[in-house]
């Protein structure tokens, strides 16, 4: 059966979708990706859809699911490279993909994930510094 490869890049996962997704392939990707996030403890997921020409409500839902599931596992999802025609169609369909971060290309997506990690760390630090003091 067809599978979409998931690449590991440091603490991030990269998925490049090269074919138009059909339903079962999308469902497999969802399951594989969540497994991978859990197994590798990845902090971010990059989904590159620059080669995808059609995203309908089902695919949109899968992307949304991946983002929500990853979020629970403490990983942020960034969708990169969406084609203009796909973006317009998704908006008209009524699917603004709330909760999913977006970036123009993989490089910018990676930078976005890194900046989110940095902010995360800063707040973590502050929390520790301002945290309750045991007397």
């Amino acid at each position, binding site marked *: 059966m067809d599978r979409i490869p998931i690449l590991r890049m440091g603490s991030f996962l990269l998925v490049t979708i090269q074919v138009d997704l059909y339903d079962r392939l999308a469902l497999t990707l969802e399951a594989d990706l969540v497994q991978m996030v859990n197994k590798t403890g990845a902090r971010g997921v990059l989904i590159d859809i620059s080669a995808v020409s059609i995203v309908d409500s089902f695919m949109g839902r899968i992307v949304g699911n991946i983002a929500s599931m990853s979020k629970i596992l403490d990983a942020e999802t960034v*969708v*990169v*490279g*969406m*084609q*203009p025609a*796909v*973006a*317009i169609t*998704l*908006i*008209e369909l009524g699917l*603004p*993909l709330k909760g999913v971060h*977006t*970036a*123009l*290309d993989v490089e*910018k*997506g990676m930078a976005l994930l890194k900046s989110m990690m940095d902010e995360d760390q800063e707040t973590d630090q502050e929390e520790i510094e301002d945290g309750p003091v045991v007397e």
Partner: protein
Amino acid sequence: MSLKINKLLQKKKKNILELWMKNQLADEGLREDLISNEELRSQSEELIDALVSNLGEDNFENVDSDLWSPVIEILGGIAITRARQGFTPRETGNFVFSLKEALLEILQQETKDDAAALFAQSLRISRVMDSLSVVTFETFIKGREEVILRQTDEITEISTPVIRVWDGILALPIIGTLDSARTQVVMESLLQEIVETGSSIAILDISGVPAVDSLVAQHLIKTVSATRLMGAECIISGIRPEIAQTVVHLGIDLSTIITKASLASALAYAFKAMRLEVKKIPAGQR
């Protein structure tokens, strides 16, 4: 009926043409600047040829019949060309009306002694020529509409320039009324340019838009949302106080959109978002 119209046409073809040409050339409205006499002659000849060779006695009055279609095709072609060349409706109409005059004159010569036949035949010729003028006007107007449509397309294309104001910042000033079709073009060219230049911020300046109603606002929101899906940010600038008033009165929610009063403040925002700084250099330092 003793007199056959198609026979008469065939016999008198040359005379009709000459008379018709004479009528046309005598007309004050003749546009020698737009059409040469030779060209006019060949157009006229073509039409008479079609008229003579396609028409029998039976189908003469039935303009809808198939035999008429070559005539109508030629006439339509002439009307469309004239519409594009900039003839007025009157000048185009005269082309057919002067043929009618010529036909009636020939008919009169042929039926000198037979008043009843003259009356009956001129009625038929009138009817037919009137139908032909209707066809002429219809096609003429269609030709003009095509010209207008083409111009509309051109205007839409010209009026949506996407400007690269900085590395990574695009601006699109919109001037004139925004309707659905235009917004479509604006949105598509903006999004395409974002992909091509890899710009992460786009500024949509609406200072040249006379009014914003709920439909326009909806289009703007759509453009902003689509830009976000692609991974860029879209700022709306150039919102005049009147527009702010109407937007609130109409109950349109623009809170999800970044709005700025002027293009300058939108640019300042964009610089800040990209961590760029514009500084004044103190005098004496270079």
